[in-house]
């Protein structure tokens, strides 16, 4: 890494902001507030309770170089077809280093009223929407994103509408230099009874130590049903920061799947607000880490209305000296009677040097609720291995089957058949590469 020298010449966020300010635009007030809030708070440290197990040193060591201009690297459709999920019949929106590429995007005719586009061209009309769900969050990376975001996806499904085919958001980091930082913003609005499947991929070409800071706001209307699959598979030198803010309405169903496979450091903040009765919210995650990777999921599920179900299932497979961090807070407000909340975090440790930090937290102010949580950290179950052996399977096959099953618990919850099957195969292949099977 060339960070030592780059640091001296790299602009601070405040210096870099001059160009954002010059560009102006309808969101300039938000951007200014964002910068001020970030300047006030700075990067979190491990002294902050929410970042206790996750040191941002890999990020702090990098220069701060927001990718304010589109890259001039050229790709073609064939290359994009080769990425994970690239062969499915989907509408595709491609962003390169935080900038929309209309050449690489493929949008078919969606039904009337459905919008699948980039967001930077619609800022005037989104002025009151963007940050409406994330504004109260203290996370400094949201403030930083407010200040610097370049583009991202705008998905709108009208009431009773549905996406004709899944939408695949592809975010590529291509920057060649360390410290290039893409700030991505997505706005997803599913109207009442709307339906759709959304796949969000974060990938990198090359090995530079870039960073991605993505903020996604999803508003899920009454009776709507959205499946959202986030697939983070960036190179091992990158830093990935993501923040999801969702507000769900009556009887809405939202399944969010987080696959955290890449990046040296990844952090997913999930903030779910169950604002009306009858909601079903599923947060389902798999992290697989090796070398010195760290994958962190930090969620707050806010039950603000009665009769809602929320389920969080997170499994981690941790190898070498990597670390998995899980923080799951379920907040049940006093009105939220008949809440049914369930949370599990299971960690499979493949090496003596891997670490799992897991912190379930229940905060309950209603008296008629059912909340459960459980966390495990351990190795493969010897009894299960023996059981498989007595059925004729050797230990290598048995271990592979168990690891695959452990990941499969999560992958199986993905409803979209094609995506689930491809992911299943991908996870299987990654596990096959491991040297821990004997």
């Amino acid at each position, binding site marked *: 890494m060339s960070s030592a020298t780059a640091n001296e010449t790299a602009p601070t966020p405040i210096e870099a902001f001059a160009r954002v300010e010059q560009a102006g635009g309808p969101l300039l007030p938000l951007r200014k507030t964002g910068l001020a809030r970030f300047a006030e708070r700075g990067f979190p440290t491990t002294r902050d309770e929410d970042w206790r197990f996750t040191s941002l040193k890999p990020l702090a060591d990098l220069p701060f170089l927001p990718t304010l201009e589109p890259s001039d690297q050229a790709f073609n459709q064939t290359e994009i077809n080769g990425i994970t999920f690239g062969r499915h019949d989907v509408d595709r929106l491609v962003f390169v280093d935080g900038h929309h590429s209309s050449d690489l995007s493929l949008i078919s005719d969606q039904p009337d009223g459905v919008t699948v586009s980039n967001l930077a061209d619609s800022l005037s009309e989104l002025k009151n929407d963007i940050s409406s769900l994330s504004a109260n969050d203290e996370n400094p990376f949201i403030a930083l994103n407010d200040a610097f975001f370049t583009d991202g996806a705008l998905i709108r499904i009208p009431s009773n509408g549905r996406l004709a085919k899944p939408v695949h958001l592809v975010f590529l980091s291509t920057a060649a230099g360390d410290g290039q930082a893409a700030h991505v913003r997505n706005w997803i609005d599913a109207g009442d009874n709307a339906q759709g499947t959304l796949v969000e991929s974060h990938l990198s070409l090359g090995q530079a130590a870039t960073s991605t800071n993505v903020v996604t706001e999803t508003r899920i209307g009454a009776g709507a049903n959205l499946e959202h699959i986030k697939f983070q598979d960036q190179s091992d030198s990158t830093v990935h920061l993501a923040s999801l803010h969702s507000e769900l309405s009556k009887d809405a169903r939202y399944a969010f799947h987080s696959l955290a496979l890449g990046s040296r450091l990844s952090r997913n903040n999930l903030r779910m607000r169950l604002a009306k009765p009858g909601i079903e919210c599923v947060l389902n995650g798999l992290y697989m880490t090796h070398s010195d990777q760290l994958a962190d999921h930090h969620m707050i599920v806010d039950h603000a209305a009665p009769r809602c179900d929320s389920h969080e299932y997170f499994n981690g497979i941790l190898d070498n000296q990597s670390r998995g961090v899980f923080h799951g807070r379920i907040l049940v407000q006093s009105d939220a009677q008949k809440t049914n909340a369930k949370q599990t975090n299971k960690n499979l440790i493949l090496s003596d040097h891997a670490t799992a930090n897991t912190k379930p937290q229940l905060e309950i102010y209603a008296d008629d609720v059912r909340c459960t949580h459980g966390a495990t950290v351990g190795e493969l*179950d*010897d*009894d*299960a291995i*023996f*059981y*498989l*052996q*007595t*059925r*004729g*399977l*050797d*230990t290598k*096959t048995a271990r592979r*089957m*168990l690891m*695959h*099953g*452990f*990941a*499969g*618990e999560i992958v*199986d919850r993905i409803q979209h058949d094609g995506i689930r099957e491809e992911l299943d195969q991908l996870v299987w292949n990654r596990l096959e590469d491991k040297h821990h099977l004997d």
Partner: protein
Amino acid sequence: MLEIKNLQAGIEDKPILRGIDLSVNAGEVHAIMGPNGSGKSTLASVLAGRDGYDVTSGEVLLQNDNLLNLAPEERAREGVFLAFQYPVEIPGVNSAYFLRSAVNEIRKHRGEEELDAMHFLKAVKTKMKELGLSEDFLKRPVNTGFSGGEKKRNEILQMAMLNPRLAVLDETDSGLDIDALRIVADGVNRLKGPDNAQVVITHYQRLLDYIVPDFVHVLYDGRIIKSGDKTLAYELEEKGYDWLIQNAA
């Protein structure tokens, strides 16, 4: 078929089996009974090759192969099947996938062609029907969330699919109501043939009303202290184990 000679085994320094001799011929059903702590489950574990047991003496021959030199999976491929007292839950591993892998591993070893998905499904569905298992069973993860009865029926299903030469059933009746017991016993009886043998380990006589043994052995303190025919089981039902234990002492 199975020849156990002076088998002594224990955990760490604690001896549990203190010299077992048992001879089982093809076509026979043997019951091993005994009070709790007599070594019944240890015998099953040692036959299947579970880790943690030290065999200090003796040998176990399956058609002249010394089983004790083989890994658990090699024993399974040679035709040993253990129906577990407590079948292990394996979350995330689909039952159909698991069972087909096991069947094909064993077929491969026998030099038989592997079953493709279609032939496997056809075979397994017939057997599931006989055991009263619904079709969604195949999609569920192995034993995960199964009731006690379903777990035991799953053991018998696996046994039926793997077609072992020697089946060891460890307390297969525990936790079963009378209807489930009958289904499980019927399943076991269907598998009985001139080329295989069954060793049924049980605490209670009631299983033996349904799986009728040719021989009954009483295990106590790591030794077989009495052998007889099926009438011995009735005698035990009536008189308990104490009279035998006193005789042995």
